[in-house]
């Protein structure tokens, strides 16, 4: 294996799971695989341009760009793909198994509700929320990945957190409440 490939596998590929998680939240079901593959290939081609140490933020930025490009192309063709068989597969969950089936069931119900609520947020809100809470990135990294100023990151984060909380209350208590 040549040197560039070895360095790429050491520095960038460890973030493949993060790239995939991120693409799953950005894209329609069934599109994440292609977007991630496209992004990794572009990352490899442009790898010499990577300076500094933040390979993760860099890879996620490319994932987002690939997603935007793909979305634009689709809009141009006005092409709406039909859901395919296997689109709705659960994938495998990374968390280690719990020995308690009862609490597992309750948890998986909650997970489904939460997944649905997050999916219903506008894309730019969902993106910052996931980058902060799941990828645990700081404001500067999120600003780099989403290509907006830090102030915008902060206001989007605030709005998405408030919206998620309001939706959650609506779902659990069945009564609409004022959004704080």
């Amino acid at each position, binding site marked *: 294996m*040549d040197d560039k490939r070895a360095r790429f596998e*050491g520095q960038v590929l*460890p973030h493949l799971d993060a790239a995939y998680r991120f693409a799953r939240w950005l894209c329609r079901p069934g599109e994440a695989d292609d977007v991630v593959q496209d992004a*990794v290939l572009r990352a490899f081609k442009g790898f010499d341009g990577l300076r500094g140490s933040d390979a993760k933020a860099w890879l996620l930025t490319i994932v987002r760009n690939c997603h935007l490009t793909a979305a634009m192309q689709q809009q141009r063709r006005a092409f709406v793909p039909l859901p395919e068989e296997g689109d709705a597969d659960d994938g495998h969950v990374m968390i280690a198994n719990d020995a308690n089936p009862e609490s597992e069931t309750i948890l998986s119900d909650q997970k489904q509700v939460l997944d649905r609520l997050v999916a219903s947020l506008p894309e730019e809100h969902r993106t910052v929320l996931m980058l902060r809470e799941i990828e645990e990135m700081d404001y500067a990294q999120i600003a780099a990945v989403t290509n907006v100023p830090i102030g915008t990151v902060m206001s989007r984060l605030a709005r998405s957190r408030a919206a998620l*909380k309001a939706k959650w209350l609506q779902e659990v208590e069945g009564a609409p409440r004022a959004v704080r």
Partner: protein
Amino acid sequence: MQCAESLRVQAYFDREVDAVSAAEIERHVEHCSECRELLLDLEKVRSALRGGISFDAAPAALRTRILQTLDQEGATAEAANTVTRLKAHAQRRTKGAGGRGFWSGAWSGIGVAAVAAAAAFFFVVPSLVSPLSNELVSAHVRSLMPAHLIDVVSTDKHTVKPWFAGHADVSPAVADFEAQGYRLIGGRADYIDHQRSAVVVYQHGAHVINVFTWAASGARSPANTTRSGYHLAFWQQGDIQYCAVSDTGWDELLGLVRLLREQA
């Protein structure tokens, strides 16, 4: 109505403010019930998301497909390089020992020297700075490969700790902090700094944290650092050197460090 300080309170919650602003915001929160409630809400949303949302790892088939694409890409690039080399060679031969040959040769010589200097800067310097950090990041990345993470799978510290007795040169602190979001998932033996190292493995949301431990060599603990997007937090306790490695945020990584230090 929303308090004008709410964005600053959020920044405080995300640990994005310096100590002076943090103190100001804490004073404000004492008097503002709205912001107190906001802090509680932020914590609720965070713990719901981190504990409750599904994270999918990249499917194995996708990983394989990507590696294949990279193989092809590597092969194409190599073929292109060969073609360029052959063309250059042919050009040199047709030009012969013409007047321009010397100058282009001279310029390319300068180019080679600059590239060599740049290469020395980018590759030699970092490895001189800290081979240990590179070793730790490599071991962390290796552990994320399938089936390398854990030698002893257990969420019980009374299983993990004794296991190290026969497999490593040190006996590190082992504890489960599931309530605080750091779940003990097992242990592993590794080889760091020429010693058999004990590694305690935690899961924090979607992230794996490896806590490496080995016998302190008497030198001062290295400074915390970041390599390839992974944070490394070092500390010493008694005669054991600890290093926690992960791609979590600093805040989350240092949270585990704090818990481990308090617990010992």
